[in-house]
């Protein structure tokens, strides 16, 4: 059985950020590992992403972030809560300095994947921590807020 079986993930950019390579690479990694990927692309507001998450009933929202527009990621976290998506796994990847990374984790983002993150790290984390993974395997460890992954291979 493939790692991603049954897990549905949104991969998207946020705000006016048009850096797509990281998100597209991650979409490829996840698809190859058996995840179902809903790729939203560019020019997505927090509202649009949350609407898509509800409509597509995904297990993970993955933001590819290269534009320092962290305020909109925070908005997304708030919106997720306001919409009752309390068990939605929210992860962020991209060029995020340590300070804002800590800040986002404190805000409720579950995990930050920094540049250089290996495919294996991403697949392993999502396949054990996603809502879908817990649905099928309730005993799995969900260790609360994660930390920034340095992408060591």
């Amino acid at each position, binding site marked *: 059985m493939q790692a991603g079986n049954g897990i549905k993930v949104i991969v998207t950019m946020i705000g006016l950020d048009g850096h797509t390579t990281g998100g597209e690479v991650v979409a490829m990694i996840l698809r190859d590992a058996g995840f179902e990927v809903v790729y939203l692309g560019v020019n997505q507001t927090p509202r649009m992403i949350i609407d898509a998450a509800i409509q597509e009933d995904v297990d993970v929202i993955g933001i590819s972030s290269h*534009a320092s527009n962290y305020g909109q990621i925070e908005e997304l976290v708030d919106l997720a809560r306001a919409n009752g998506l309390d068990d939605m796994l929210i992860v962020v990847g991209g060029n995020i300095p340590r300070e804002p990374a800590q800040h986002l984790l404190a805000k409720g983002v579950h995990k930050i994947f920094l540049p250089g993150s290996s495919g294996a790290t991403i697949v392993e984390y999502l396949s054990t921590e996603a809502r879908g993974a817990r649905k099928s395997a309730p005993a799995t460890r969900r260790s609360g807020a994660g930390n920034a992954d340095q992408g060591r*291979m």
Partner: protein
Amino acid sequence: MKRETDYGYAIKPVYTPADVAGLDYEKDLGHPGSFPYTRGYHESGYRTRMWTQRMTAGLGSSKQANGVLKKYREMGQRGGMCVISDRVFSHCIDPDHPLGRKEAGVLGWPGCSLLEFEELMDGIPLTGQSITLLGSSAPTVMRLAYVVALAHKRGIDPSEIHGSVMESPFENYFGQTDVQPFDLNLKLWLDASEYVVRNKIRMRSSVISQHFQESGGNNAQAVAVVLSMYKELCGKLVRERGLDFDDAALVPYELVSIGTRFFEEIAKVRALRRMWARIARDEFKAKTEKACQMLIAVHTSGRTMTYQQPLNNIARCAIQSLAGAMVGCTAMDNATMDNAYAEPSALAARMSLNTQHIVAHETGVADVVDPLAGSYFVEALTNEVEQEATKILNKIDELGGLIAAIDKGYIQEMLRDEANKKFIEMDKKDRLIVGVNHLEIPPEEDFEIPIQKLHPGDSEAIAERMAKWKPTRDQDLLKARIQQLYTDAQKGDRFNLMPSIVEAVEAYATSGEVIGTIRKARGLNYDPFNVIECPFALH
């Protein structure tokens, strides 16, 4: 470990005369200054003219960016200034747009009106240095209009200004995105290009492989893609705008991304010069030497800059700058050691600029033209990258040119596959990156460099300033100029909008207003994001 070029050709342990058998010095290389310019355009290289050593500015408000530009001048950057726009101006909406409010001035200069340009250029000369304004394609006409308008205000003949403020519509497909449709960007690019040629303004347009390559493309693909852009755009200027090819060919300049594959980077640029020279002469029947000489600036690759052990990036930047100097470029800008983190800190910017000065003044590399010519390896690589690029170029031609190839998805697929391949090669350690997949250290042990801090309040302040300033403009004049633009924009694609855009900009129309008005005349929503309404009653 892979021992092959980044486009997949095997690399041998040793190269001999057999690898360059048949190479004809006169025909294939030419003396520096002679066709096909493989060795460059000047017989005495940098002794005639040193490359422009520049750093890119733009962050926060226009006044802040002005401060940085002045600082760079103090640091020895006199030959040219380079400013890159924020995401708001790049999309051609305004800071007071609900989506603009959150990102104005965050990743660049919020240049959404002539007022911003006036503040940016306060106390900085328009002449005597090259003026480069970067960003996406959509604001091309705005940036050009600012330069013309400010020149008028300062009593300078625009033809005395040189630099580059236009950007090719293709960059939108290669990561330098904006929300405007391709046909609109193309039309406006042609308008701006025709305008500079007819008015003898020495402004260039970036038509570049850098975005493509930084998005993950390989060296051969980058060569093919930039050549196909040149062919498509120069061809249109000739066929659709009636320009002489020899004038049209002076509009574009190429910005090449130089990565860490030292010899391959050098070979790439040499091949590029040779290939363009032949295309210009044979396909376009160029009459002048200049039209056969692709103007090439260098950007040292940001993509190779790692988050892990950022001081290592200083070494990468130095190697790339050396390669960039060896290829014989007209200008160079560097990615900084903190590239994988945030906008450059003052320290990192100074480091990078100094790296160029070290290469220029301490290594002796600037004393000799094309120092690697005749190297069996480099000449073989030059031939190979040309061979591979020619294959791709032929394929693009077969599909009907670059626009057709993009319509068919060929280019996007090629780029996506290559970006994925690059990642997989790294993931599998087929290519080693020190600190990332080789010789890693725990983050706690990593050296922390200073990181340029964000001031989230800045965006709101920029937005508020614009919202309050807009009603203070001469409303009658503004409305009249916008109406004129609206009328002109309905006159068809070949009707040049530059004159009416300059007039609107002189009345302080903003980027959102100018492009929104043109959009409306073309039957599109005023607001590309469909959030705000058109504030003008147009008829």
